[in-house]
């Protein structure tokens, strides 16, 4: 089951090289000019490696490096977790470059929990399974191109 949230509390998953500021990714609920819904492209996200079959996967979709860096997403998705795999889709997208940040909200509090030093304490991942060095993966590593071919672009992501 997919549902779009007004704001998804996607932590910034570490500032460069460290764990520090966790801030929410702002994702508009109602499509605006920045979030067109009239495209024909589609992204399917298949997540494996879920350790706890509870809570939800919260994901945010970005269509630019600036948006990715500043956590201004174009779509968000919350999917309840009931098994060790989870799938959801972003539909009606224009062609272009995208990247995804997601985390497993294990305790269902709607936030990416961090410890006192700001390190995430819930599993997270990026598109392309991109990794950062104890921080968020860079846009260039996480971005992928989506074309409107009629088949969904699949992102198979393994949770850390």
């Amino acid at each position, binding site marked *: 089951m997919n549902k779009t949230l007004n704001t998804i509390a996607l932590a910034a998953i570490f500032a460069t*090289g*460290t*764990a*520090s500021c966790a801030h929410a990714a702002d994702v508009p609920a109602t499509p605006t000019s920045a979030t067109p819904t009239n495209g024909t492209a589609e992204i399917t996200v298949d997540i494996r490696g879920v350790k706890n079959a509870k809570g939800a996967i919260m994901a945010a979709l970005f269509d630019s490096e600036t948006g990715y860096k500043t956590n201004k997403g174009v779509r968000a998705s919350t999917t309840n977790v009931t098994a060790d795999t989870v799938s959801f889709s972003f539909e009606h997208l224009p062609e272009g470059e995208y990247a995804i940040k997601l985390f497993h909200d294990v305790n269902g509090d709607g936030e990416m*929990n*961090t*410890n*006192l*030093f*700001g*390190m*995430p*304490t819930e*599993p*997270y991942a990026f598109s392309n*399974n991109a*990794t950062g*060095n*104890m921080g968020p993966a860079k846009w260039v590593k996480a971005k992928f191109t989506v074309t409107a071919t009629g088949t969904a672009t699949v992102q198979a992501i393994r949770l*850390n």
Partner: protein
Amino acid sequence: MTLDFTRRSALHILGAGASLGAGIGASIGAFAKSSTANTALSDFESFAQSSRKNPWTLGWRSVPASDMSTAKLRVVSGKIPTGLSGTFYRNGPALFERDGLRLHHWFDGDGMVHAYHINADGVSHTGRMVRTDKYVREEKAGRFLASAFGTKIDNPAPVSGPDDFNAANTSILPIGGELLALWEGGSAYRLDDMTLETLGAKTWGKGLKGMPFSAHPKVDTDGTVWNFGQDVFHNRLLVYKIHANGELAGVHLLKNVAPGMIHDFCITKKHLIFVVPSFQAVQQSDTFLGKFKWLPQEGQRVIVVEKDNLDARREYELPPGFQFHYGNAWEDNVGDIRFSVCAGDDSFITKGATAVMRGEKFEPTPTYLAHVVLYKNGKARVEKVSKERAAHEFPQFNSNVMGENARYLYTVGDSFEDAPGQSSILKHDFVSGKITGHNYGQATVVEEHLFLARPGSSREDEGWLIGTTLNLETQRTQLNIIDAAHIEDGPVCILELPYALPLGFHGAWKGTA
């Protein structure tokens, strides 16, 4: 990344520099004469070559099995003293090689915890690798996956936090019915205190999952445990206060703590003392250790906070230095604070601890024992206590005088001339100024010895020193018990394992209730 990681003991202040004991090292087997690093060889090849000719390399070989046990240790001499009953735990890096790769830095070895159960009938031994997340994943993968403290791994697996490379290899803390395997940069790992089975990472409370919990917690005389976790990348340090029953009393964040590597700290009756060494995380690197730089121009900064008000803070300047370990600390009626330290520089952590992994000789600056005085008026002074029997490490004292003006301090000392390691256990009497001790001989490497007060004791040195040694001739690890009041008589009991264990770091004692 965050926090600190691991580092630990500078045991084995290798090399000569300061050896005493005539002829020490002579029979240890000469080092390869060409002791300059042959960088054409990998760490693996270099160590393999060296281990064929240098008996001392035994201390840095991977442990032969992940789980070991001996029902009854052979008694080599003497008998177990009446009244000594409990478990002696130890921890240390024990696995150094996977898939043809040898770790570059000693402190990266995966931790193995040992339990010596002791009573009048004899001593048993159990040793188990700590099943950290790192160890489990790397066992499965058949190779090292994480660039950890001082080793860069090619094609590393993603690292989301320090616990992904937590080696749980530094010390051990029995508390509240739990046994914790300690590292420095991440969580403590919970173990079953009898079977040593790994139960998982310890979370002390809300917001504390994955927080660093250092390897030198201080147990106050009322059982309260103090510890810290450092984040050198954000100049901060978290103080933990834990009740004797193992429940968290509280945590407190100290800010504006310069990014010098803090391994240990001290406590007085009223204060916590953190020394920030001149070895600071100021540069980029693939490894945690590589981010640190020796900055002698920086000096050292001492931060003193009150136990009852952790915001009440004062600071002092000390000459440049880096050290792993401190002895006891106390404050007098005037308010001056004194503590002892096994002082030195960064040469062991940056060079010595990688040389041993390659089986190469390196002579770090020998550590020396010093007293530091922090005057109420803000001035500070360092007094060298002893120079001649240098290479002091692994300071220990009677825990009944924690935070008081202790008379005695026990250290390992006396470096071998031609090999890493030390041969003596020493007793420093700060009243008479005398140093006495026992030299285990030219082929025996001494590890940390704990002081165990005799139940009902009144004199400060009334008790036993208990510690392991590695006998390079018999290729066996020995367990030694010494009457601390008569240290120069040597062990009153020596027991022997049927195998050699790699040299470890720190231990703890849990007496039979």
